[in-house]
C-alpha cells in the first residue's frame, strides 16, 4: 500500500470517535464507569495513531503532491450543485488533526478522573467522542459544506457539554446562549457559501483557485461573511459573549472545546479560505484589527476576574485575538503556530484549574484559594510551566509563537497592531501572574473559607459558577480525600495528562523556531504547500528580530514583576483586591466586561422582547386573527337574514362561498369574452 492509498483511508480518522459516540450514546449507561471512559479514550487514541500515520505518509510524498482526497461519496447533489463527502489530507489538515487528537486523547484520559462519580459518566464520554468526530470532520472536510457539518456538530456538542449539568439553570442558559450566538456567525458562513457557489459554481476547496478572478466587492464580501462565522465560533468581539459563560461546563470541556480546539476553528477557517482573504484588499485589515482589539479588551477584563476559569476564558478570547491578528496580516503559519502552542499551554492551564477545583471540592473563587503549591505539587508545578509559556518567557512555547506574531506585524509595517499586541502581552503576563499567586502562593485563604463557606458564597453571589455540580456529592461523599476540606492532589489519570502537556508546553515552541537559514522553521516549511500563493515576510535583519524578541521578553518579565508586586502575599483575608481597588470605577467596568453582555441582555429582554410579544399577542392574535374572524362574522351577519329560512351556520358560510365562487367564474369568463 503506498502513501496515496493509505491517505485515501483518511475517513477512518473521524470514524473511530464517531463509532465510540454511537456506542456510548446507545449503551453508555449500561457500560458505565469507568469502562465508558476507557472506550472513548481508546477511540480518540486510535484516531491519534491514524493521524500520525497520515502525517508520516504525507511526509513521504514530494511537497507538490501533499494534497490527497480520501474515499467518499456524493453527499448532496441538486441542479448544478454537488458536494462530496470526502476528506482532504494536506499539511494544514494534518497539523490540525495531530493536535486535536493528541490533546484530545490527553483530555479524555483526564476526564476519567475528573468525572468520577458523575451519574451521567457514560453520556459525558459519548458527547466528548461526538465532539472529537465533528471537529475532525470540520478540519478534514474537502469542501465548505463538509466543514460546516463539522462546524455545526462541534456547536451541538458545545451546547450539550456546556449544559451538561443542566439541572443548574445557569448551565442550561449558557449552553443555549453559546449555540444561538454561534448561529449569528453561521448566518455569515451560510451566506458566504451561497455567494461562493453563485460566483464559483462549487463549494470545493479546490475551486478557490478562481478567487483571484472575482470582483473586489464580491471577494471581500465572501471573506468578511466567512469571518463573521469565524467571529462567532472563535469568540471574537462582538460575538465573544458566549465563551465566558461556557465555563459552566465541566472543566475538561473548557480545556478541550473552549480553549484548545473548537474555538480555534474560526482561525482554521480563515487559514483554509485564505485565497479569498488574499484576493481581497481590505478583508485582512478587518480581521487583524478585530483580532487585535479582542486581544487587548479581553486581557483588560481578565485582570479583575475572580473565578479561576473565567480568567482563563477571557485569556482564551484574548489569545484567539492574536491568532486573528496574525491571519489578518497574512502570517498564516504564525497563526497556526500560536494555535498549536496555545492548545498545549491553555489546555494545561485549564486542566490545572480543574485539578485545583477538584482538589478544593468545587471551589472556583480565587479569593478563597492560596498557598496550594504545598498541597498539590504536581498541579502547581505544571501550572507554573503553563503560566511562563503564556506570559512569553523564553524558551517556553508561548514565547516563540507570540513573538512570531508580533514580529510579523512589525515586519509588515503594521506598527499599530504591534503596539496593541504588545500591550495585550503585558496585561497577559500580569493577569496570569495574579492568578498563579492567588492560587498557589500567599496565604491559605481556603482555611477560613471552609468555616464560613455559605457566608462567602453570599458575598460572591454574582459569580454564576458557585453552585456545586451534581457530581460533587459523589466527590465529597467518597471520603477518600482525607478531611472534608483539605485540598488534595488529583489521581494519576489527571496528573499524567498535566505532565504530558507540560512537556509539550516546554518543547512545543521548537516546531517552529525563527531561524530560517538554519532550517529550524519546521512548521512554516511544512505548511508551505498550503500557503504557496501567500507572500512570506522574513525579518529584514537579525538585529531587528533580536530587538523585537528582547522587547517581547522584557514585556513578559515586566508583567510578571508587576503582578508579583501586587499579589506576592496573596490577599488580605476578606479584603479587597488591591488592583480592583486602585482602578475604582474603571475596575467595576472591567469586572462587568464593559457591560456589553448586560447591554445585550437588556436589549433582548427589553425592547426586542416587547416587540416579539406585541407580534405574538397584539398583532397575530389581536390583529390578523381578529380580522379573519371578522370576515367570518360578516358572513354570519349576512346569514342572520337567512336564518329565518332555517339554514344552519355551516350552510350560511357555504352559501357565501358559493356566491363568491360564482362571481369569480363570471368575472373571468366576462373578461375573456
Amino acid at each position, binding site marked *: 500500500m503506498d502513501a496515496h492509498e493509505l491517505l485515501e483511508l483518511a475517513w477512518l480518522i473521524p470514524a473511530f470517535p464517531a463509532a465510540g459516540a454511537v456506542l456510548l450514546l446507545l449503551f453508555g449507561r449500561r457500560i458505565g464507569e469507568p469502562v465508558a471512559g476507557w472506550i472513548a479514550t481508546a477511540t480518540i487514541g486510535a484516531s491519534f495513531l491514524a493521524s500520525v500515520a497520515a502525517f508520516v505518509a504525507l511526509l513521504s510524498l514530494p511537497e507538490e503532491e501533499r494534497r490527497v482526497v480520501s474515499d467518499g461519496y456524493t453527499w448532496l447533489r441538486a441542479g448544478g450543485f454537488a458536494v462530496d463527502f470526502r476528506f482532504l489530507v494536506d499539511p494544514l489538515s494534518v497539523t490540525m488533526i495531530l493536535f486535536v487528537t493528541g490533546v484530545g486523547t490527553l483530555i479524555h484520559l483526564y476526564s476519567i478522573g475528573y468525572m468520577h462519580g458523575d451519574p451521567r459518566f457514560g453520556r459525558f464520554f459519548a458527547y466528548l467522542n461526538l465532539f472529537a468526530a465533528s471537529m475532525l470532520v470540520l478540519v478534514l472536510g474537502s469542501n465548505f459544506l463538509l466543514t460546516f457539518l463539522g462546524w455545526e456538530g462541534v456547536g451541538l456538542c458545545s451546547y450539550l457539554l456546556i449544559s451538561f449539568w443542566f439541572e443548574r439553570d445557569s448551565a*442550561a442558559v449558557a449552553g443555549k446562549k453559546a449555540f444561538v450566538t454561534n448561529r449569528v456567525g453561521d448566518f455569515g458562513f*451560510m451566506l458566504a457559501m*451561497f455567494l461562493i457557489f453563485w460566483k*464559483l459554481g462549487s463549494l470545493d476547496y479546490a475551486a478557490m483557485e478562481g478567487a483571484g478572478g472575482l*470582483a473586489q466587492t464580491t471577494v471581500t464580501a465572501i471573506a468578511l461573511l466567512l469571518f463573521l462565522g469565524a467571529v462567532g465560533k472563535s469568540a471574537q468581539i462582538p460575538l465573544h459573549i458566549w465563551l465566558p459563560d461556557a465555563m459552566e461546563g465541566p472543566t475538561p470541556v473548557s480545556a478541550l472545546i473552549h480553549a484548545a480546539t473548537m474555538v480555534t476553528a474560526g482561525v482554521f477557517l480563515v487559514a483554509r479560505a485564505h485565497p479569498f482573504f488574499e484576493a481581497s484588499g481590505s478583508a485582512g485589515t478587518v480581521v487583524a484589527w478585530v483580532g487585535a482589539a479582542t486581544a487587548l479588551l479581553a486581557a483588560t477584563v481578565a485582570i479583575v476576574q475572580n473565578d479561576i476559569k473565567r480568567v482563563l476564558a477571557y485569556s482564551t478570547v484574548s489569545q484567539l485575538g492574536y491568532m486573528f491578528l496574525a491571519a489578518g496580516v497574512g502570517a498564516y503559519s504564525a497563526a497556526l503556530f500560536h494555535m498549536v502552542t496555545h492548545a498545549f499551554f491553555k489546555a494545561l492551564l485549564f486542566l490545572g484549574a480543574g485539578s485545583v477545583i477538584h482538589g478544593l471540592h468545587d471551589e472556583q473563587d480565587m479569593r478563597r484559594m492560596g498557598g496550594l503549591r504545598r498541597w498539590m505539587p504536581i498541579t502547581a508545578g505544571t501550572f507554573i510551566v503553563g503560566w511562563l509559556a503564556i506570559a512569553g518567557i523564553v524558551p517556553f512555547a508561548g514565547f516563540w509563537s507570540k513573538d512570531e506574531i508580533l514580529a510579523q506585524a512589525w515586519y509588515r509595517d503594521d506598527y499599530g497592531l504591534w503596539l496593541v499586541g504588545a500591550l495585550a502581552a503585558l496585561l497577559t503576563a500580569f493577569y496570569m501572574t495574579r492568578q498563579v499567586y492567588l492560587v498557589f502562593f500567599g496565604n491559605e485563604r481556603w482555611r477560613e473559607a471552609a468555616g464560613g463557606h455559605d457566608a462567602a458564597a453570599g458575598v460572591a453571589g454574582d459569580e454564576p459558577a458557585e453552585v456545586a455540580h451534581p457530581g460533587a456529592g459523589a466527590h465529597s461523599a467518597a471520603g477518600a480525600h482525607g478531611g472534608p476540606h483539605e485540598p488534595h492532589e488529583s489521581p494519576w489519570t489527571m496528573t499524567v495528562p498535566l505532565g504530558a502537556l507540560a512537556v509539550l508546553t516546554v518543547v512545543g515552541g521548537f516546531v517552529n523556531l525563527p531561524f530560517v537559514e538554519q532550517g529550524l522553521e519546521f512548521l512554516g516549511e511544512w505548511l508551505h504547500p498550503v500557503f504557496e500563493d501567500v507572500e512570506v515576510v522574513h525579518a529584514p535583519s537579525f538585529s531587528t528580530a533580536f530587538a523585537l524578541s528582547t522587547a517581547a521578553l522584557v514585556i513578559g518579565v515586566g508583567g510578571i514583576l508587576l503582578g508579583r508586586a501586587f499579589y506576592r502575599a496573596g490577599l488580605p483575608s476578606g479584603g479587597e483586591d488591591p488592583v480592583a481597588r486602585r482602578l475604582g470605577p474603571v475596575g467595576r467596568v472591567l469586572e462587568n466586561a464593559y457591560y456589553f453582555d448586560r447591554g445585550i441582555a437588556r436589549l433582548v429582554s427589553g425592547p426586542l422582547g416587547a416587540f416579539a410579544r406585541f407580534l405574538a399577542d397584539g398583532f397575530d392574535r389581536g390583529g*390578523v386573527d381578529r*380580522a379573519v374572524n371578522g370576515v367570518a362574522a360578516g358572513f354570519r351577519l349576512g346569514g342572520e337574514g337567512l336564518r329565518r329560512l332555517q339554514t344552519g351556520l355551516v350552510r350560511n358560510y357555504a352559501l357565501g362561498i358559493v356566491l363568491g365562487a360564482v362571481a369569480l367564474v363570471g368575472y373571468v*369568463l366576462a373578461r375573456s369574452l
Partner: protein
Amino acid sequence: MTDFPILTTLVLLPAAGALLTLLVPARRPELVRALGYGVTVATLGVTGYLVTRFEAGAGIQFVSTHWWMETLGVRWTLGVDGVSLFMVVLTAVLFPIGLLASAEVDRPKAFLFWVLVLEAALMGVFLALDLVLFFVFFEFTLVPMYFLIAGWGHGNRRYAAMKFFIFTMAGSAFLFAGILAVGFLHRRDVGFLTFDAGVLTEWASSPGALSSGTARVLFLAFAVAFAVKVPLFPFHTWLPDAHTDAPTAGSVVLAGVLLKMGTYGFLRFAIPMFPQAAVDLSWLLLVLAVVGITYGAVVAAMQPNIKRIVAYSSVAHLGFVVLGIFALTAEGIQGGLFTMVSHGLTTGALFLLVGMLHDRRHTYDVAQYRGLWKAVPVFGGLFVATAFASIGLPGFSGFVGEFLALLGAFVTSRWYAVVATTGVILAAVYLLWAVQRTVTGEPDGDNAGMRDLGPRELCTVVPLLALSLFLGFHPSPVLDRMEPDVDRLLEHVEARSDHDVPSPAPGVEEAEAGR
C-alpha cells in the same frame, strides 16, 4: 404485473379499510386496531413496492385512467412522478405511526374510520392528474379532519375545527372557480371539455391561450387556496388553533401531510399552468414566504403553549418550502420538495413527543414543565435530538432541504434569501428556549414523578428521527428521484415564460462584468 393498478390500489385500499371498519363490532377494539395497522401497513408496503418500481426520469408513470363523469369531461386519472412520489411515501409512513400513537384513543372504531378516509383522500390528492378529481380529494380531506379535531381534540376543539373548515373551504372556493374557468375556457378555445391536467397545462401555458390578466387572476385563484393550506401569512391563524386542539395523530398528519397539499398544488398545477403569471407574481409569494419564516419564528418563540410553538414553527418551515419553489431554480425547488419531506418527519416527531407530554400531564402549558431531561431521560434526549433536527442542524434532513432552498433562492432572489437565512438563527432561539424551559433544570412537582417513554412510544418517534438522520447524510435516494421531474418543470417554465434559470457563473465572467 405491470398492469396492476398500483396507484388506484393506494387510494382504494385505505378506503376499503374504512368501509371494513364499519363492519367490525364496536365492542371489539382489538379487532379495530388490528384492522387499522393491517390496512396502513399494507398501504405502506404497496408504497414501498411503488418506490422500487419507480423509474427516475421516466416522467409521469403508473398512469391509470378511466372515465368518471364523461359528459363533464372528468376522468379518474392517477399518475406519479418524482414530485409526488415522496408525498405518497410520507403519507404512507406517517399513518401507521399516527395510529400507533393513538392506540389508547376513545371510540377507536369511529376514529379509525375517519383516519382511513383521510389517508385515502390524501393519496388521491397526490396522485390525481385530473383537476376535478384533484379538487374532490382536496376538499374531501376536510371532512375527516374536521371530525377528527371536533371529535377527539381537546380544549376549544369545535371552534378550532370549524375555523379550519371555513378557512380552507373559503380558499377552495377560489380553487374550484379557477378549475372550472380553465376547463370552460379551454372548451371554448379548443372545442371539447376536459379537466385532464396534462392537456390543460399544455393549453393554458401555451402563448396566446390566455391573456396575461386572465392568467394572473386564475393563478391567484389557485394561489389563494394553496396559500391557505400551506399556510402563508396572513392566512395562517387557523393552523395554531387547529393544531393545539387536534389529537396527536391529527396534528402529525395535519403538519406532516395536509399542509403540503398547498405547496404541492403550486408545483403540480399553479406554476405549470400559468408559468408567466407565476414568474410575474413570484415576488408576492417570496415576500409571504420570507414573512412566514421570520414572523412565524418570532411568534413561535413567544407562545406559552408548547404545541403552538411547534405549530408556528410549521409556518416558518413551510416558508422555506415556498421560498425554494418560487426561486424557480432546480436547487430551490428540490430544496423545497425535500423540506416538505423532512418537515413531515421532524415536525411529526415533535408533535408525537408533545402529545406524549399531554398524555401524562394533560396540559400543553410550557410553564407546567421543568427538568424533564432528568425526570424522564429518554424523553428528554429524544426531545432535544428532535429539536435539533427541526432547527435544521447539518446531519439531519432539515438542513439539506433548507440549505438547497436558500441556495436556490440566493441565485435568483438574493435579498429574499438573505432575510430568510436569519431564520436559521431564529429557529435556534425558539426551539432551544422551549427546550430550556421544559427539559432542563431540576424537575419539580408532578414532573419528577413522570413515567418515561414505553416501547410503543419509542416505536413512533425513533423511526422518524432515524429517517431524518439517514436523509441528512444520504439524501440522494430522494433527490435523485426528484431531479428529472424538477428539471422538466423548469424547462417547461422557461419555454413558456420569460424566466431564465441562471446557472452559477464561472468566476471569470464575473470579473469581466466587474471591470
